[in-house]
């Protein structure tokens, strides 16, 4: 038990820069009409072949402005991001924790144990980045092509130093931490008081 605590302590020291540098995430989304979507973005979404309704949003974050399509396909919730010219940025869809390779999942879990006293998954998304044609192939085969980059974007409730916060943590395909963002929660005083 003591050895485990020592390992956790040193692990925490290694991961400390990620904890202390957790930047903040703020996003603002507006619904936009499909008529104003760049043709290349529309064409990419069409090639996925979803039977469900496509909802388009303009997303303003702390750093940039993007266009996002949200829809369901093969029982999964998809979110596809383009820049304002319609160039594909990435494709994300929600997965279950059991869909992560056991070795990678174990690595992710171990890192989260070090970072937080208590944590709980809120949402896990797999994130594809790369050539649009290879991404379409990966979606159709339900397995990522070797040519595309894969990340896991995990939203979780993490408790450290007494207070619980919401975080978005990006892991590489191998389960290494790529970045931590603290999600800014909207004020709710008008609902509470």
């Amino acid at each position, binding site marked *: 038990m003591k050895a485990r605590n020592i390992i956790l302590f040193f692990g925490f020291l290694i991961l400390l820069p990620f904890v202390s540098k957790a930047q903040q995430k703020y996003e603002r*989304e*507006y619904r936009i009409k499909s008529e104003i979507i760049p043709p290349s973005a529309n064409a990419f979404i069409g090639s996925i072949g979803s039977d469900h309704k496509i909802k388009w949003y303009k997303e303003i974050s702390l750093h940039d402005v993007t266009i996002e399509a949200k829809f369901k396909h093969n029982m999964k919730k998809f979110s596809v991001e383009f820049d304002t010219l319609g160039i594909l940025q990435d494709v994300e869809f929600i997965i279950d924790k059991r869909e992560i390779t056991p070795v990678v999942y174990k690595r992710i879990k171990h890192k989260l144990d070090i970072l937080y006293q208590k944590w709980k998954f809120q949402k896990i998304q797999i994130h594809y980045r790369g050539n649009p044609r290879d991404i379409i192939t990966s979606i159709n085969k339900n397995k990522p092509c070797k040519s595309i980059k894969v990340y896991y974007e995990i939203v979780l409730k993490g408790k450290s130093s007494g207070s*619980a916060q919401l975080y978005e943590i990006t892991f590489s395909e191998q389960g290494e931490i790529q970045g931590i963002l603290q999600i800014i929660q909207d004020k*709710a005083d*008008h609902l509470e*008081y």
Partner: protein
Amino acid sequence: MFIIFINSKILCAQTQTRAGFIPSINYNHKIDKVWEVNFKFESRHFVFDNTTSQSGDFEYTYSLSDVSALVGRKVGLNSKVVLGILTRIKPDALSYRAIQQFIFQTKIKNFRVAHRIATDQTFSSNESTEIRLRYRLSAEIPLSGLKVDAKEFYFKFNTEALNGIQDNEYDLELRVVPNIGYVINEQHKIELGLDNRFVSFIDNQTRFTSWVTINWFL
């Protein structure tokens, strides 16, 4: 509009009804990650009252003002415990209320929902102590986009059930409050609503009160 006005006048004449307006200012301040304080001022004004036979039904009457100070402590990601005190100032009397609340938030699709379970005890020199147990559900529905942002409108719906005991008599009050809100900026929100209260549900003759509310959150 004329028919609605006539119908509401007939309804008002049949049941014990009061109507008026409540402006309120609600200031919330985060002390740190965990603690926050909330100060609220509201005043009630009647413009219609058929519960007393002393005067005409349509008449402006100032009723009371409430001043409250609450301290909240976050106990989870979306939950907090709140304690505080409210002072009720009537033209001829003063009363005090101790307040204890547990609030937690959930999300249903794009709707933010807050649940408030509360107890309060009201003390005054000329009335017996009243103890209440209440549950309020508040839902916020964005009218554009996935969530409510600055310069956007939202719909807010509050409903609350209040169980009260005073002089060994139990009573139930129900409240239904639809609101239209607008987020001016990160700090300020303004809401216009209709606060409908059905008082004395059990045993006594039900009294209906409806207020136009104007809330300013800062």
